[in-house]
């Protein structure tokens, strides 16, 4: 399936800075907002100084208001320039791009595991799954979370102790969530977020666990751990990857990841063949 990709001059409506060089940006891009699905990204020309575009995961859209929310961490020159952009300014933006997460099987229980700036696609997935399939969101961060937090009212098997907080916007919509951190953040599971998810999965009955699917986005070490959890319990793990990107629409084959399909090694384009891949196809994560 090929969706149309739109080039919009996205107007910055908000740019809220958070600890750890994180910022949440809301832009007006009605066509992307209307078409985007969880797991897709936008390709932003952040500045004339650095005209190559930067791929940024979509956190949430409001199709009625025509807005797209992005969570970014300023880690390189491009994202640092993006952080300094002001409300009212515009940026050329291509979107939505990429194969989204497959959320079509509503008989499954979706376990969403996000780390750092990999949390946004999990929020988008959760909003899309709401009322359709059972799910739980686990989010990890080593700096203060860039979201409002509140005590979670959901009781999750295998999740106890200090892990009492959830993401407020999810909890308010009846979506269960829990947090993990190694930085001693209040109300979080002390450890890595895949371990939190593992504790939850281990406490499920065999039948319940067999229905689970892992969806994940985050740093590579975290994705490795998520793939291991999937293997340990024999459940599929879908990982959203990132790679240096040039065109962002499949024209240059610059952003590849190695896959093994039918015994044959291939390089697939992260931008349009991904960014979501099943972990068993990826030798790096197998």
């Amino acid at each position, binding site marked *: 399936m090929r969706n149309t990709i739109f*080039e919009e001059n996205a107007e910055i409506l908000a740019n809220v800075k958070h600890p750890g060089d994180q910022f949440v940006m809301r832009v007006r891009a009605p066509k992307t907002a209307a078409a985007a699905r969880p797991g897709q990204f936008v390709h932003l020309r952040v500045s004339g100084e650095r005209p*190559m*575009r930067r791929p940024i995961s979509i956190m949430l859209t409001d199709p009625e208001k025509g807005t797209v929310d992005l969570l970014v961490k300023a880690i390189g020159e491009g994202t640092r320039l993006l952080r300094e952009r002001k409300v009212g300014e515009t940026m*050329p933006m291509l979107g939505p791009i990429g194969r989204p997460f497959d959320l079509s099987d509503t008989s499954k229980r979706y376990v969403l595991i996000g780390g750092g700036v990999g949390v946004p696609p999990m929020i988008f997935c959760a909003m899309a799954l709401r009322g359709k399939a059972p799910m739980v969101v686990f989010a990890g961060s080593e700096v203060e979370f860039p979201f409002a937090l509140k005590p979670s009212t959901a009781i999750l098997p295998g999740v106890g102790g200090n892990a009492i907080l959830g993401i407020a916007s999810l909890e308010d919509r009846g979506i269960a969530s829990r947090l993990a951190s190694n930085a001693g953040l209040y109300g979080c599971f002390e450890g890595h977020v895949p371990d939190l998810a593992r504790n939850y999965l281990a406490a499920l009955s065999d039948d319940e666990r067999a229905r689970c699917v892992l969806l994940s986005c985050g740093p590579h070490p975290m994705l490795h751990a998520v793939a291991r959890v999937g293997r340990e319990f024999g459940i599929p793990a879908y990982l959203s990857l990132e790679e240096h990107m040039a065109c962002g*629409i499949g024209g*240059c084959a*610059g952003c590849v990841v190695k896959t093994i399909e039918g015994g044959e090694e291939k390089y697939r384009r992260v931008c349009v063949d991904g960014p979501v891949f099943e972990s068993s196809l990826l030798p790096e994560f197998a």
Partner: protein
Amino acid sequence: MTSESVHPSNIAAELSIDFAGLKLQTPLVLLSGCVGFGEEFTRIEGYSNRDVGAVILKGATLEPRMGNAPHRVYETPSGMLNAIGLQNPGARYVVEHVLPRLPHHETQFWANANGSSLQDYAEVARIFDDSPVTAIEINISCPNVKEGGVHFGNDPVMAARVVEAMRPMTSKPLITKLSPNNADIADTARRVIEAGTDGLSVINTLVGMAVDTEKRKPVIANVSGGLSGPAIKPVALWKVHQTYAVAKQHHIPILGQGGICCAQDALEFAIVGSSAIGIGTGLFYDPLTCKKMLSGISEYLNRHQLETFSSLVGSLQH
């Protein structure tokens, strides 16, 4: 998914060009390696194949190639490095499975032929000869593969032998892509013209590298990559200027390229001798740049009371 071209109808008369015996609807040519096998940019709302005279398909070799490990691309000041490594499914696959899907009524598609031996190049030419591509670009200047490629392009005698090997295999125009990484581009141009090339692509990327200081490793897995984008524009203009001095004596057209991002860039390349205007990295900056370029070129031609784009080619006063 392509939308109807929106440029005014009078532009077609001004901007269509003759290139190596082909009639191109505009002088803009999308460059090999930047637009996949012609099916990617058509997904973008507002993009139209009708705005370009030709689309050059991703480089093809006789056998499929996996390409290089990542990272393959990296942004540098005013440009980018790439080392894709000619990832492609093989020339036969392109002819049998890709070309039948392409909208040949919207624009021309050209092949880009690569090889690691003279026999490879000849066979790839033969395969594309029996296909709907209207021309074959010879890539003797790819810097990112260990065998073939630039090793032919950096040796003027070998470059000419590649053209000689391909010439009897096809009646389609052959366009030889010259490397900027050799000492005397004009000498290479003269030799490939004498060997039977119908056109010249000037220039391919300049070889460069980038370093990750935290890891003390090259950013590009291939260590070196090809530098493209506005950073190389002055070099490209100079190489086109040098090549044009030879090419015009033989009435061989040049497809100028190297950092062209806007109408102003296109005009500069035309003035130094480019009959056609190649766009690569500029598409990554703005995938809808072609319409804007055509509009800017038209405005310039009108302002200078020039009836055709071609009348601008090689008009440098010096």
